[in-house]
């Protein structure tokens, strides 16, 4: 029996391209005759543009054009009547300014330096209006989005009557995805009705659809290339106004135009995790059985779009609790629109819930791990369905053993190591294990190689590698002879890479297209090959890339050669069925942290992290581990350092660069142990793989704040946990 490819610690199939600099990200392309663009962005936070003086810029050497609302070509999709007053930011459509840093013009020149310099010469005059960028100061503007209603199970606010209870407010600041790769686009109108773009996107098909709507072009007149994406973490789940600006500039220039925004603009143009204020009330019996949870959240959005996410949902389903009510509201601020950032709303909500559980445990004088186990949900209390698989208790045990949980003291501030206060903390995370719809094509060549195509994306988790492993097991063909191609809009339909669903969704399509291929090969063999003529295609066995019946064995390659077929192409579409109505499907994570806190300076040093994932089958243990440690590093930033600070007087970010917005560096990160349950989910998809990208981060920040509390006795409810909050 051939060794399974799924479950191996296989090197990435695109590793060589990445270590040699040969992997080409959007900005690495250079179409013939390409021009460069730079943005002119608003310096006010609310108001109107009264004048744009581009004369000096237009006189500067090499400048081709300055495009703004005064001269931009019309966007057909912007003209459509839409009753919704919040229609997003229509770039260069009118004189309205909603936020600081909003693009007001794009300058096109024949070199990068000339474009950047000329952008500095554009003089914009404004009529300023009052702005509001402070969430805390705007709580009176909170409103409920129609599609997200209040939630009630059992009795509202039951926590208030509980023998042991507590209520607290938790705040997270704006966090910015800040992938290493700067965002932007190369746009090229190859004909007046034919557009090609090189994009940084988590979904080429999604970009194609948006452009189809906006420019009202036939789908096959829009080509989107995005084979390598330099990180995104959610910010490339949608198209941004600056990308439309680039397309408009290219339209006017009649040549390809490249825009790469700068790091400062990464804070204002491509989304962020919204600031959120949450209140949790939680109550239990004296022996620790939860009786009520009330969770409310208010998060910011922009003036022109309502961005919503699932901040309060974890409180509805994580624990067996009879009485739960939640409320979710938005506040519009003069900022650009937020977008899902890794873990998304669930990570925001998990910080509050998993901190509150720890606070309640302290009040109960109970081990917080025991409290969680005591209130473990055996069936989904929200959907009232059995779980497709759930090994959370095992994950608690594995993590506790690895971190040395028995070293933890129940009373805070009891442990000292080398002059530092030491503490242990833990938390849990949960995220819906989803499965969407995707199509893949498979091309089997007469040399025995297999190429599978699907318009999936890869922002780093190793999509192509996992797909090759899945295809290798489905066909028996060696991994070295299989290629998986993604990131092209001409490939068969696949959803965006988001919500931890790529392996589940696209992997299922890959599995199914391999089955379709085998069926087709079976038909070929039964119709044409004497040894197989007596059989039905379904009766033929498939082993290691060959058709087998009794003693007859025919390699796929040999079959194609005999039939004089240079290649055989099939396609298959795959999606979930009714099983999703019968089961609750979630991935779970458990995070354990050991921290040191300096008693005099308040500096927090993370000494050890253990993260455990219950994510079903682990397709590739090497890349899966990388995904988990990546979540840990992102979580360290969320817990300890990341905060986009606004000077409220101007509505402008003040730390909009890597030197002042602190993402964790190598020296900030501790040795990390990643453990996997690695048990196949019997329901979700053929591989039994649930998702992993989000749970790697969800809950993590609470493990740190809980450990800090255990070390110091100080409860920090406002992230990030900077030293000033501990002294």
């Amino acid at each position, binding site marked *: 029996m051939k060794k399974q490819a799924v479950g191996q610690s296989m090197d990435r199939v695109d590793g060589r391209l990445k270590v040699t600099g040969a992997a080409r990200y959007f900005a690495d392309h250079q179409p013939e005759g390409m021009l460069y663009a730079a943005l002119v962005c608003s310096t006010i936070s609310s108001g109107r543009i009264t004048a744009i003086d581009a004369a000096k810029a237009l006189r500067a050497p090499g400048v081709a054009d300055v495009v703004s609302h005064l001269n931009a070509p019309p966007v057909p999709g912007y003209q459509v009547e839409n009753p919704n007053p919040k229609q997003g930011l229509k770039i260069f459509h009118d004189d309205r300014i909603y936020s600081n840093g909003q693009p007001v013009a794009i300058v096109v020149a024949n070199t990068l330096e000339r474009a950047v*310099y000329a952008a500095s010469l554009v003089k914009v005059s404004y009529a300023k209006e009052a702005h509001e960028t402070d969430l805390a100061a705007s709580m009176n503007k909170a409103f409920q989005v129609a599609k997200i209603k209040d939630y009630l199970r059992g009795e509202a606010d039951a926590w208030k009557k509980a023998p042991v209870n507590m209520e607290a407010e938790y705040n997270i600041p704006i966090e910015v995805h800040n992938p290493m790769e700067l965002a932007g686009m190369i746009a090229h109108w190859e004909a007046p009705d034919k557009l090609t773009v090189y994009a940084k996107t988590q979904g080429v098909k999604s970009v194609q659809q948006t452009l189809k709507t906006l420019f009202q072009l036939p789908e096959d007149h829009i080509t989107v290339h995005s084979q390598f994406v*330099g990180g995104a973490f959610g910010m490339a789940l949608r198209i941004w106004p600056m990308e439309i600006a680039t397309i408009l500039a290219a339209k006017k220039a009649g040549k390809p135009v490249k825009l790469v925004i700068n790091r400062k603009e990464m804070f204002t143009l491509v989304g962020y995790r919204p600031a959120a204020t949450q209140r949790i009330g939680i109550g239990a019996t004296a022996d620790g059985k939860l009786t009520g949870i009330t969770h409310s959240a208010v998060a910011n959005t922009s003036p022109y779009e309502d961005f919503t996410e699932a901040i309060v949902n974890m409180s509805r389903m994580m624990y067996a609790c009879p009485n739960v009510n939640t409320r979710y509201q938005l506040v519009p601020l003069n900022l650009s629109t937020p977008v899902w950032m890794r873990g998304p709303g669930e990570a925001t909500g998990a910080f509050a819930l998993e901190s509150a559980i720890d606070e309640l445990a302290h009040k109960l004088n109970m081990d917080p791990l025991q409290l969680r186990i005591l209130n473990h949900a055996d069936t989904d209390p929200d959907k009232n369905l059995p779980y497709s698989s759930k090994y959370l208790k095992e994950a608690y045990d594995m993590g506790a053993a690895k971190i040395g949980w028995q070293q933890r003291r129940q009373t805070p501030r009891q442990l000292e190591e080398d002059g530092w206060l030491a503490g242990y903390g833990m938390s849990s995370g949960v995220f819906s294990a989803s499965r969407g719809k995707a199509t893949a094509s498979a091309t089997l060549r007469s040399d025995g190689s297999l190429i599978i195509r699907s318009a999936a994306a890869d922002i780093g988790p190793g999509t192509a590698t996992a797909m090759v492993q899945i295809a290798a097991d489905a066909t028996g063909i060696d991994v070295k002879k299989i290629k998986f191609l993604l990131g092209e809009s001409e490939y068969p339909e696949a959803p965006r890479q988001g919500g931890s669903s790529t392996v589940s969704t696209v992997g299922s399509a890959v599995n199914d297209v391999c089955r379709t291929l085998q069926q087709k090969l079976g038909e070929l063999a039964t119709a044409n090959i004497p040894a197989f003529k007596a059989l039905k295609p379904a009766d033929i066995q498939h082993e290691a890339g060959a058709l087998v019946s009794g003693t007859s064995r025919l390699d796929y390659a040999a079959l194609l050669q005999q039939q004089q077929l240079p290649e055989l192409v099939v396609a298959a579409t795959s999606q979930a069925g009714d099983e999703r109505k019968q089961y609750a499907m979630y991935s779970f994570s458990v995070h354990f942290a050991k921290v040191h806190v300096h008693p005099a300076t308040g500096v927090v040093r993370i000494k050890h992290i253990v993260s455990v994932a219950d994510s079903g089958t682990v397709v590739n243990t090497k890349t899966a581990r990388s995904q988990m440690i990546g979540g840990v590093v992102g979580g360290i930033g969320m817990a300890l350092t990341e905060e986009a600070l606004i000077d409220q007087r101007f509505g402008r970010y003040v730390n909009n660069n890597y030197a002042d917005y602190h993402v964790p560096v*190598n020296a900030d990160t501790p040795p990390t142990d990643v453990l996997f349950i690695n048990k196949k989910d019997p329901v979700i998809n053929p591989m039994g793989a649930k998702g992993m990208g989000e749970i790697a981060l969800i809950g993590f920040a609470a493990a740190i704040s809980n450990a800090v509390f255990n070390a110091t006795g100080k409860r920090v409810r406002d992230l990030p946990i900077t030293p000033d909050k501990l002294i």
Partner: protein
Amino acid sequence: MSQAPKENPTTPGKKDKHEARRDFLKQSSALMALALTPPLVVKAGENDEAIAGLFEKMPVSMHINGKAYQLSVEPRVTLLDLLREQLALTGTKKGCDHGQCGACTVHVDGQRINSCLTLAVMQEGKKITTIEGLSQGDDLHPVQEAFIKHDGFQCGYCTPGQIMSAVACIREGHAGSPEEIREFMSGNICRCGAYDNIVAAIMDVKQGGHNV
């Protein structure tokens, strides 16, 4: 448009200093002449290139990945933008343009530097190595091999900078322990958070006694 210098990148040797100075003097007189020309003529767009060539560019010679280059570049062009936009060496990445992230790390005369923080015209006579010049043909450098083996990346965008930095880190003698590596690799941000694996890769090369 013709911003990219079209010099043959394999042209060996470089201009001597006197020749460069003569070019400069020629440019200076042309600049004077243009300064005396009526503004209407100067502003004409089609003259941009001719004017820029005389006014704005300077000759510079350097070796990149073993090849000699004789170039003419604007003094404001960074080494990073020269590599990426004019020489099509796009393996070196731009992450911040402010020396804060390390994605643009290259070697100049064997030292690791942020190529976004240095101007191309300052590289006269320097030997520059980028990620494209690290491997010997198809044979990967041991650090490249180790990054694949230990999965020292996810998206791969910071990887060229990490690898150039890692090679220098070992050569500098700063790869003695995981803690030392973490400290001396902290100028290279990896937002995907592959730090643990990057440290393992560097330790592996160091302990393997490879010649880096």
